[in-house]
């Protein structure tokens, strides 16, 4: 008993961390990607590693694409040959120089592994067509003109072949080693010894980074990434100062509270992440336009956006984010109108569309908002006589199911984030039937005219022409209402107030550490 009392006293004594210790490192509480190999993963969390440990030829700063490892580029008039001039004096973390050969190696590796980030390139780029005419020039010859080529350039991490070479096994391009190690040139160096997949990633500043540190008077030296799994724990850990940042999906309910806390704030930035409810257009009842219009008018956009999400999102009329080019002028979003919805549904019923069966809507259980949206929709649809059944699922499960039209659920709820800033990322890959079988194109929408317009837009390199083509395609798609587009995300990231210099970009959700500093 005395022992217990002593123990308790000791615990209380240490209840407040000892003051005057060395400055607390930045603790990043966002989700970590599955692996550190940037040629293997390509999703929202992977951007954190991509932006900080690696560099690409170009990079997004805000909504703008700026030259990064490349100084400049040229493109031939037919849009097939692209040449990038590299900066001089760029060093990898091991001190070796970054040359054109390393860029070529990186693209070869990417195209050989054929994993997610390669998807934007494989249709138009063969490995042998990436070459280095000299030590500071990289040449790409595409098999077909490809408009979004430059926009997709920041996806590709340039890796150090000399770091990888000793670890190559069975012709795997060093994939096993790269999963937990760093072969980059980025502003931060991964401490591979402490790395635990999805649990802990420690990084320290790379003083020799080619962009220099002149822009930042007090750069952060030590960064520890500690993903917090549960949303509520994440928010509370932030408010108690255990972590310095949440993920960028901070629940809107928490915004006020985080802002009220003297230690924390919420960074709010309009992003490019479209929230939508999908419909499987290949099957009854959603192969009927009236049904789709009925559903589009039965969603309480204002209630969801303004009350549940407290107005921290922006109503988005179509598949492309509002704040991106390529939208037709004057597109008026669908309105919540149950009377109109009922008319459409009645007309569909009269035409013999089976609307009496339960319609399944798959939600991502771990993402609360998808559940809330479905529940609200369910309640409203009951008033027009439609039964919605909510099926909990995971992103993995849904991705698998959407590989075939027959296994794709009636409906499902998700976001389309900014992987690169180009309408191709949204409307292009979502409604061109050539992408059927990928989750982005999972509404199985087919319209030859739209296919034609989107292909032309993809293959053009003339901005004005592309703008027009995407707008024309979007206008058609909007009228046919294949999905229910709800809002464009305002990125909400909780931060401790000691984090300074946080600067948002839709790609990477503002996770670029190079720009940040800590005030004490």
């Amino acid at each position, binding site marked *: 008993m005395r022992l217990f009392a002593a123990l308790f006293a000791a615990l209380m004594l240490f209840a407040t961390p000892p003051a005057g210790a060395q400055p607390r490192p930045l603790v990043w509480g966002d989700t970590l990607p599955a692996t550190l190999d940037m040629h293997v993963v390509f999703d929202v969390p992977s951007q954190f590693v991509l932006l900080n440990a690696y560099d690409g030829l170009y990079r997004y700063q805000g909504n703008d694409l700026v030259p990064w490892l490349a100084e400049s580029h040229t493109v031939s008039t037919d849009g097939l040959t692209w040449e990038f001039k590299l900066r001089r004096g760029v060093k990898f973390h091991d001190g070796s120089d970054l040359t054109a050969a390393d860029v070529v190696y990186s693209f070869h590796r990417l195209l050989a592994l054929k994993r997610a980030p390669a998807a934007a390139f494989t249709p138009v780029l063969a490995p042998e067509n990436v070459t280095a005419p000299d030590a500071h020039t990289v040449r790409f010859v595409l098999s077909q003109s490809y408009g979004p080529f430059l926009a997709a350039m920041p996806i590709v991490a340039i890796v150090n072949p000399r770091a990888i070479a000793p670890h190559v096994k069975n012709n795997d391009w060093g994939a096993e080693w790269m999963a937990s190690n760093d072969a980059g040139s980025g502003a931060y160096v991964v401490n591979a010894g402490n790395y635990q997949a999805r649990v802990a990633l420690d990084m320290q500043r790379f003083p020799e980074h080619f962009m220099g540190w002149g822009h930042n008077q007090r750069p952060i030296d030590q960064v520890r990434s500690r993903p917090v799994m*549960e*949303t*509520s724990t994440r*928010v*509370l850990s932030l408010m108690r100062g255990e972590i310095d940042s949440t993920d960028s999906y901070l*629940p809107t*309910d*928490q915004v006020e*509270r985080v802002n009220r806390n003297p230690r924390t704030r919420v960074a709010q930035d309009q992003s490019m992440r479209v929230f939508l409810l999908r419909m499987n257009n290949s099957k009854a009842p959603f192969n009927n336009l009236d049904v789709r219009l009925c559903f589009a008018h039965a969603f*309480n956009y204002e*209630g969801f956006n303004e*009350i*549940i999400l407290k107005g921290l999102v922006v109503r988005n009329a179509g598949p492309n984010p509002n704040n991106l080019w390529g939208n037709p002028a004057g597109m008026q979003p669908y309105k919540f109108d149950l009377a109109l919805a009922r008319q459409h549904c009645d007309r569909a019923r009269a035409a013999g569309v089976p609307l009496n069966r339960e319609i399944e809507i*798959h*939600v991502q*259980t*771990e993402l*609360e908002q998808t*559940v*809330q949206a*479905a*529940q*609200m929709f*369910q*309640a409203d649809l*009951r008033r027009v006589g439609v039964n919605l*059944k*909510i*099926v*909990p*699922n*995971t992103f993995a*499960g849904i991705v698998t199911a959407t590989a075939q039209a027959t296994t794709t659920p009636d409906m499902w709820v998700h976001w389309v984030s900014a992987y690169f800033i180009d309408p191709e990322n949204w409307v292009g890959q979502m409604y061109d039937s050539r992408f059927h079988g990928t989750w982005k194109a999972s509404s199985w929408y087919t319209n030859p005219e739209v296919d034609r317009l989107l292909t032309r837009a993809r293959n053009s390199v003339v901005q004005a022409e592309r703008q027009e083509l995407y707008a024309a395609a979007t206008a058609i798609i909007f009228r046919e209402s294949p999905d229910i587009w709800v809002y464009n995300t305002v990125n909400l990231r909780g931060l401790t107030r000691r984090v300074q210099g946080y600067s948002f970009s839709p790609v990477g959700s503002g996770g670029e550490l190079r720009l940040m500093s800590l005030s004490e």
Partner: protein
Amino acid sequence: MRKLLRDPVASLGLAIVLFALVVAAFAPWLAPYPEDAFESHLLQRLKPPSAEFPFGTDYLGRDILSRIILGTRNAIAVAVAVVGASMLIGVPMGLLAGWRDNWVSDVLMRVTDVFLAVPQLILALALGQLMSPGLGTAMLALSLTYWPFFTRTVYAETRRLRGALFVDALAGIGATPTRILLLHVLPNAAPAVLVRATIGMGFTILTAAILGFLGVGAAPPSPDWGLAVAEARQHLPESWWFATFPGLAILLLVLGFNLLGDGLRDVADPRLRRSR
């Protein structure tokens, strides 16, 4: 029964279980807002407990008391289904394995061991992903992991009873093994099975709640209690009532079944009864 009622703790359990059964049976009439099983009322979301909403409202503005009342049905239905299915698998296997010592018995018991060695919740989670997650899947997963307990119970009882004099006597007058097992051994094993089933009800409600909490159990808008706690998490600590009351409901009902099971065990097992 009288013995059970004389035990204050067990009668408390019985009272809770009976209360829950009544609530489940008349849920739509007892709930102040029965339509809150499906409806949402966004304007009154996350209201603290008041006279209008004794347990407050949840994140879609639904009355938590109503949803707890409506959820009782779910909880009990799951428990009954899972325990029933587990008994259907487990009891015959236990009888079969316990009757003779041969390879059939060995195989059956080894299979049981395998299922017992499987980390239960992980198996349930994996199975929860097997088909689309939902209450049905959760029930299947729970039944698949719970039957070995019945097998073990019945196995032990059968082995104990097969050596009993009356079994020898029955065999002597030419009763078939099936007849002996079903008409004589099974009724004698029934008290042990009953105790196991009662405790299993509580256990199942608890595990189903965990599955609901982890997102592979009941699906929204089901007024499932575990699901409600999960939904409530991101509204803590402000909306404490949202997590607290559904959790208390789980606690109370499981407690009821466990107390009842505890009391039944004392009544059923004369060896332990002596020590009570």
